[in-house]
C-alpha cells in the first residue's frame, strides 16, 4: 500500500456512503476559513471494534461496535473551537463547522482550492483484524488457551481470555488544502489467571498485540506464551513476601518496565505543557536532565507496533524524535497547534482518542536506548534492593514531576542475587531526579509486548514503551515490610 492508495480507499469508506465528494468538503473548508482563523480541519473517522471474552471455561460474551463521525476544529491564535457529529451527512457537517468557527470574529475567508494528498511511508499492513479470522476460529482459540493455561498447573483456578480487534479508517483535510488518510489495524490478546494454594489467591496477567491482524495468534504459539507468562506470574506471587518500605536501589527489567520512561520523562516533554510552562522540564532545553547513560526516543516509525503511526491524527507523517541524548534534553513532542505557537515544527505526535476529541501532543512508542552493561552485572552490583520486572501501570503529575508505577512482579535483591518474590508495591519518585540516578543501563533492549494504554485529559490512546535492564540508585518503594537495613 502507498499513502495515496490509503487516501483513495479512506475517501471511499468515509465519504461515499453519504455521497460527499471533494466539492462538498472544500465548500466546508471555505466556511471554516476566516481572516482571523489560522487553520482549521475536518477529521473523518470510521472505527469498528470487536471483542470476545472467555471466563469460567466458556465464551460468554462478544461485542461489536461501529462508530462513524467527523470532528471539526478551528484555531485562532491560542483559541480553539471544536465540534463533532456522529454522522457524515452534509447537514451535520455544516452544523459542526458553524459551531467550530464560532470563535472567529470575522466573516468567511476564501477557503481551500483543490485538495493535495500528503505523502507518507506506510508503517503497517492494510488488513482488517476483525475479518481476518472467522468467528468460530476466534472462539476456538479462546478455548485452546483456556485449556492450555489450566493444564500448566493444578493451582490455576480461574482463567479469563480476551481478544479485542479494531479497524480504524480516518481522513484529515485542512484549510491549507492538505489531505491525508490512514488505515490502522489493531489486535490485542490478554490472559488473566487466578492461582490458589492453601487459601491464598493471586492473579497473573499477560498479553500482547500490535498493528496487525490475528495471524500471529493462529500461526505462532504467541497466545500460549501469554498464558504461560500469566500462570508463571500468578504462581510466583503465591509465595511473595511483604515488600520493603523506603528509599533503596531498584533494578528494572527490560521491556514493559519502560513505563518508567513514559511517566518520568515522556509526558513532561509533550509540547502543550512546555508551551504553557507547566512541565517540570519547561525551559530546560539543552540542559542535563538525566544521567549521561540515558538516551530517550519517541518513535512512531517502528513497523507494526502498538504506538506506531504512518501519519498522526493531524496528517503529519509519523517520525522518530530524540527527546534526551546522553542525558541532555534535545527535543519535545509536538502537534501542529503547539508547534506553531512555539515556532517549531510538528513532530507527528498530534493524536486524539476519536473524532469526538481534540488532538493533543501524545507519545507513540517511547523507549530508552540500550547501554553496555550485562544484566547480571547490574543485579550483582546491588547489595540490598528490589528487582522489578512487571508493572500494572503508572501516573505522573507533570507540573511537580512526581510519578508512580506499580509493580506486579518483583523480587528482593540480597547480596547481588535475586531473592524471594515480593508483594506488589508502588514506586514513587520525581522524574528529573530519578533520571539523574540511573547508574547502569543494560545491553538487553526490549520493547513491550503491545498492551500499553495512555490516558491524558480524559482521552485514552494505544502506546508502546521499551527499555533495557537498568538500575536506579535510589527510589522510594511503597511496601508494608521493614526498611532494608
Amino acid at each position: 500500500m502507498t499513502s495515496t492508495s490509503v487516501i483513495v480507499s479512506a475517501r471511499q469508506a468515509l465519504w461515499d456512503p453519504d455521497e460527499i465528494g471533494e466539492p462538498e468538503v472544500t465548500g466546508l473548508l471555505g466556511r471554516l476559513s476566516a481572516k482571523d482563523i489560522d487553520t482549521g480541519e475536518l477529521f473523518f473517522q470510521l472505527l469498528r471494534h470487536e471483542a470476545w471474552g472467555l471466563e469460567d471455561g466458556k465464551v460468554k460474551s462478544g461485542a461489536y461496535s461501529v462508530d462513524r463521525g467527523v470532528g471539526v476544529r478551528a484555531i485562532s491564535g491560542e483559541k480553539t473551537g471544536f465540534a463533532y457529529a456522529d454522522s457524515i451527512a452534509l447537514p451535520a457537517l455544516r452544523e459542526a463547522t458553524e459551531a467550530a468557527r464560532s470563535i472567529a470574529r470575522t466573516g468567511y475567508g476564501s477557503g481551500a482550492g483543490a485538495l493535495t494528498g500528503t505523502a507518507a511511508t506506510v508503517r503497517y499492513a492494510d488488513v482488517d483484524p476483525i475479518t481476518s479470522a472467522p468467528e468460530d476460529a476466534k472462539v476456538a482459540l479462546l478455548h485452546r488457551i483456556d485449556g492450555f493455561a489450566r493444564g500448566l498447573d493444578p493451582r490455576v483456578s480461574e482463567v479469563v481470555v480476551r481478544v479485542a480487534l479494531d479497524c480504524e479508517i480516518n481522513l484529515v483535510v485542512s484549510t491549507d488544502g492538505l489531505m491525508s488518510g490512514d488505515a490502522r489495524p489493531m489486535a490485542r490478546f490478554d490472559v488473566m489467571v487466578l492461582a490458589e494454594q492453601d487459601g491464598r489467591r493471586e492473579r497473573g496477567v499477560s498479553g500482547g498485540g500490535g498493528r496487525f491482524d490475528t495471524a500471529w495468534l493462529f500461526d505462532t504459539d504467541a497466545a500460549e506464551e501469554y498464558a504461560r507468562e500469566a500462570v508463571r506470574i500468578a504462581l510466583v506471587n503465591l509465595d511473595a513476601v511483604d515488600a520493603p518500605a523506603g528509599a533503596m536501589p531498584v533494578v528494572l527489567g527490560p521491556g514493559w518496565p519502560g513505563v518508567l520512561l513514559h511517566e518520568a520523562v515522556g509526558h513532561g516533554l509533550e509540547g502543550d505543557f512546555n508551551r504553557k510552562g507547566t512541565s517540570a522540564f519547561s525551559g530546560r532545553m539543552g540542559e542535563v536532565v538525566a544521567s549521561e547513560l540515558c538516551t530517550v526516543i519517541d518513535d512512531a516509525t517502528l513497523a507494526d507496533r502498538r504506538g506506531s503511526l504512518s501519519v498522526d491524527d493531524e496528517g503529519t507523517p509519523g517520525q522518530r524524535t530524540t527527546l534526551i541524548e546522553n542525558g541532555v534534553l534535545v527535543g519535545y513532542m509536538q502537534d501542529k497547534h503547539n508547534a506553531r505557537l512555539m515556532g517549531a515544527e510538528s513532530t507527528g505526535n498530534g493524536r486524539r482518542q476519536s473524532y469526538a476529541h481534540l488532538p493533543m501532543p501524545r507519545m507513540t512508542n517511547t523507549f530508552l536506548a540500550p547501554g553496555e552493561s550485562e544484566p547480571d552485572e547490574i543485579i550483582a552490583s546491588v547489595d540490598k534492593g528490589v528487582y522489578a520486572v512487571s508493572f500494572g501501570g503508572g501516573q505522573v503529575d507533570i507540573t511537580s514531576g512526581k510519578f508512580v508505577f506499580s509493580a506486579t512482579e518483583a523480587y528482593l535483591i540480597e547480596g547481588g542475587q535475586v531473592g524471594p518474590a515480593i508483594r506488589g508495591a508502588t514506586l514513587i519518585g520525581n522524574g528529573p531526579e530519578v533520571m539523574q540516578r540511573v547508574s547502569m543501563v543494560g545491553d538487553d533492549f526490549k520493547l513491550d509486548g503491545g498492551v500499553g494504554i495512555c490516558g491524558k485529559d480524559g482521552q485514552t490512546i494505544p502506546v508502546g514503551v521499551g527499555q533495557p535492564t537498568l538500575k536506579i540508585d535510589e527510589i522510594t518503594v511503597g511496601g508494608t515490610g521493614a526498611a532494608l537495613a
Partner: protein
Amino acid sequence: MKPVVPQQDTDPAALAASLKDLVTRILEEAKRQGATAVEVAAGDSSGLLVSVRKGELETVEFTNDRGFGITVYVGVRKGNASTSDAGPDAIRDTVRAALNIARYTEEDPCNGLADAALMAQHIPNLDLHHPWDVDVPGATDRAAETEAAGFAYDDRIVNSEGARVATARGCQVYGNSHGFLEAAWGTRHSTSCLMIAGDANGMQPEDWYTVSRDPADLEDHVEVGREAARRAVGRLGCRPVQTGTYPVLFAAPVAAGLISHLLAAIGGRALYRRESYLLDSLGRQAATQAITLREEPHRPKGLASAGYDGDGVATRAKTFIDEGVVASYVLDSYSARRLGMTTTANAGGYFNLDVVAETRPVLELMRDMGTGLLVTSLMGQGVNLVTGDYSRGAGGVWIADGEPRHPVDEVTIAANLDDVYKGIVGCGDDVDRRGNIQTGSLLVREMTVAN
C-alpha cells in the same frame, strides 16, 4: 456568526419520546430477526465546555453524543452490539451483528433479562433536569473570573492550567422485551480550576471544582478559583518524613476513593470471578463497627440518582455495610444468578452512596491521631482486590502532636485493605457532596508511610 449550543433548548419530553420511538423500533427489529429476548439502551446528550487560561479564551467545545447499544438473547446465548448511527440501515445491521455474535457465544443459564416482576413500576420524579442558559460569552466570563480569583489569591501562584465551565444535558432510554420502556433525563453543570504555585524548589499544581444538577446549587465560582490557589500554595515547602507506620487521615475527597475499593470488593463481578478478598463475606465484619454504607438512589437532584438500574429493575434505598458487617453485595441480575442470589438493582453501579458514621470536627481527628499523615492526594493503580494489598503514591500534610506541620510529597502509603477498613477510628464532619460516594475525612489507625 452567533455561537450555537446544539440542542441545549430541546424539550426533554420530546427528546425522550423520540428516543423511546427509536428503542421500540430496535426492539421490534430484533424480534423480527429472531431474538428470543432483547434489551436496548439509547442516549442523546449535548453540552458546552469553555476553558480560559491566563485570562484568554482557550477552547470552546460543543459536545454532542448519540447512539444505542443492544443485547440480544437467543435462548441463554447472548450478543452485544452498538453504534452511533440511528438510521434504519444501521438498526438492521447492528441487530444482525448482535445476533451473529450470539450464534458463536456459548450457553450460560445465568444470561437473560432481569425477572419481569422486578421491573420498576412507578418511577419517582428525581428532579434532575435544570438547564443552564449560559452562552459562550457568559461561560467565558465565569471561567475568567474563576481563574482570576486564583491568581489574585497569593503572589506564589505562578501559573495556571486554566478554568473550565461545562454544562450538559442528556436523555437515556432503556427498553426490553418484557415491555419495559422508560426515559431518564437530567442536566449536569460544573466549574473547575487548576492553579500552580511555585517557589525555588519547583511548581505544585492543585485543582478544585464544583458540580451539580442545578446551576443554582453550584458553589460560588470565585471560591473555586481561590480554593484551587489555597491548595496549591499549601503544597509549597514539602519536607521528607521518616519511613514508618503511622495513623493516616484521608481527606474527604480522597476518602471517597478509599470507600470505592470496599464496594468493588463486594461487587458481583469481583465475587463470581473470585477476584476479591471479600469472598463469602455476607454477614461478616468487613469494616469497623463505626461505619455503615447506605445507598439512597432516589435523592432529589442527586448526582447519581436513578429510579431504575441498567436492567430496568426498581432501585431502592439499602444498606451494603451495616455497622461494619456486609449486609448486601452489589449485584446486577447476571451476577446475582451466578451467585445464586437476587439482584440488588445495581446494574451500572451504585446510586448515591453515603458513609454513615458518628462525625467529629477534622481538627479533633488530627488531635486524636497525634503524629501521622493527612493525605490530600493519591496517585497510581496500586490496589489489588484479590489480595487486598494496597500501595499508592500520596501527598498531604504532616501532623505532629495533633497540629499540621508541613506539606509532604512523594511518599507511599501501604497496608492490607482489610486492616484499613477495620482500622477506621474516626469520621470527619466535612462531608464532600460532589461525588457518587459522600463521606467525611476518614482516620485509619495505622498504615506504612514510606519516603
